[in-house]
């Protein structure tokens, strides 16, 4: 009796599997638009997907993170519809995408992000230059303590700088490293490599000795944003949406949604909406710099 119940339920389960495999095996594509990549853009992508449901209730969009590298890798394998990237694709990545999928990746600029340098809110450091950042983060950098950059941080015992950084498949990491050190140079070991932009800001907020970098959208009241200068004698610029748009702030970069070939159908509709005034209002609300009016989708 009981074993009959067992057998029936097992065969019912097996039937479900056969069905599932049949459906999956036919290679039927999900009707969901899969959107994956940059952790910097995850909250932006999430907000966009959430709002788009009101604009187009029948289009399902799924958002996942992992980092720009993860998104671009998925694009190369053809397992994602839209990859989020906080940097441009490298030539090699474009080539391998073309080779694997037969389609050219198309980068759609959807916003700008200003990368801010954060310190603990008690840190008196008012201004930081590119060479100071290189001295702190770079492989050849000699700045080990806060006195090396000319300040004394209250509450930081030993004055030793705690460097918050990002894991190496992060677009933010790649962009910041290249801007600070130039092509092909490395950060010195011993930084605290965090999984997400929020983690960096949280670490800096809780660690008086810390310095870190993340998108300006992640600023909280617990951290201080440091005014940034390129040359040692240049005036410094506070990161802001306006400064990112005008180009006055040096550490600003475009954010992309990348598709395989020219987008069509629902994907095209979504990207057009993201680049429209409605989508760009959400970009601004999430803390990123929206596209200037002439770059928007009309």
């Amino acid at each position, binding site marked *: 009796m009981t074993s009959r119940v067992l057998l029936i339920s097992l065969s019912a*389960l097996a039937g479900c599997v056969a069905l599932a495999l049949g459906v999956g095996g036919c290679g039927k594509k999900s009707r969901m638009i899969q959107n994956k990549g940059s952790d910097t853009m995850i*909250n932006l992508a999430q907000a966009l*997907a959430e709002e788009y449901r009101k604009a187009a209730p029948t289009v399902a969009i799924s958002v996942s993170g992992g980092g720009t590298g993860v998104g671009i890798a998925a694009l190369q394998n053809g397992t994602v519809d839209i990859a989020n990237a906080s940097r441009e694709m490298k030539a090699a990545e474009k080539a391998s995408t073309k080779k694997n999928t037969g389609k050219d990746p198309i980068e759609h600029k959807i916003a700008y992000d200003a990368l801010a340098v954060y310190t603990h809110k008690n840190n008196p450091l008012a201004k930081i230059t590119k060479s100071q950042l290189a001295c702190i983060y770079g492989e050849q950098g000699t700045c080990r303590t806060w006195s090396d950059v000319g300040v004394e941080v209250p509450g930081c015992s030993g004055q030793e700088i705690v460097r918050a950084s990002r894991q190496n498949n992060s677009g933010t990491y790649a962009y910041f490293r290249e801007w600070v050190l130039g092509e092909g140079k490395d950060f010195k070991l011993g930084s605290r490599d965090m999984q997400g932009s929020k983690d960096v800001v949280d670490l800096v907020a809780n660690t008086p000795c810390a310095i870190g970098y993340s998108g300006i959208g992640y600023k909280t009241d617990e951290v201080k944003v440091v005014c940034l200068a390129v040359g040692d004698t240049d005036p410094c610029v506070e990161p802001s949406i306006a400064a990112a748009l005008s180009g006055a702030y040096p550490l600003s970069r475009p954010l992309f949604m990348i598709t395989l070939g020219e987008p069509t159908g629902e994907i095209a509709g979504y990207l057009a909406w993201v680049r429209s005034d409605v989508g760009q209002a959400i970009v601004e609300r999430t803390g990123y710099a929206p596209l200037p009016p002439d770059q928007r989708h009309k």
Partner: protein
Amino acid sequence: MGVFATSPESRRRHRSQQVAFAVLLAMTVLLVLPVLAILGMLVWRGAPALSLEFLFTAPVRGMTAGGIWPAIVGTMWLVGVSLAISAPIGVLAAVYLNEYARDSWVTRVIHLAIVNLAGVPSIVHALFGVGAFVLFFRFGTSILSASLTLAIMTLPVIIASTKEALAAVPMTFREACWNVGASRWQTIWHVVLPNSIAGILTGIILQVSRAAGETAPILFTGAAVFVPFLPQSVNDQCMALSMHLFTISTQVQSVPQSITYGTALVLVLLVVLVNGVSIVIRSRIRRRRKW
């Protein structure tokens, strides 16, 4: 002074025995304390967030408000589909291994493989899932890929627990059955399975809670950070409770703590509920057992 009067020596032994008892008791309490602390913390911080609205609506305002319904549904999909794959295969494989297979080097290798597979870390299963199901079989990041990965992860444990349940049925039962002329399958069907079903079900149900709690195997194979829709088929991506908990605690800013703890509480309650069901099933069936 009788022969049985306590000598100083035996009093000393008695004392050290009591000390040993106290130490062992302390160890046991130490074991339970973290569990109670975690549960207490979750209930205390998370219970205020629990409401029908929290359970049955989608997250809104950048996942800082609203509920966790898509994550609950997603977890059910993942667990359901993975179990639909691993339970039939696992039970049938165990029946073969325990009832039919002779002790040869082939079966010994199979045993070894099962034991080792059970010890493989879940992140390794995850990478296997990406390579095999997402990329090679071209199932993409979908519920199907994630469930297959979970199924592979839970399969060895289901085989092992089913085998154990089958082996617990006394050999004399089978011999009695054979001696009245029953075939092997008749013996299995009418004697072995009815007497071991409690153990088999317990093993399967315990894997439900494992599949529901794992994050790594579904991270790259099918779970998404945010899907404002409920999945319609196994080709869709879905949200999952464990993944949602990870996301709102590491990626999203200014999520009220009650939501984070509430999500954790729901996940734990789900697991406790499933384990509770397995305990009830086992005790009910065991009461009917005749040996």
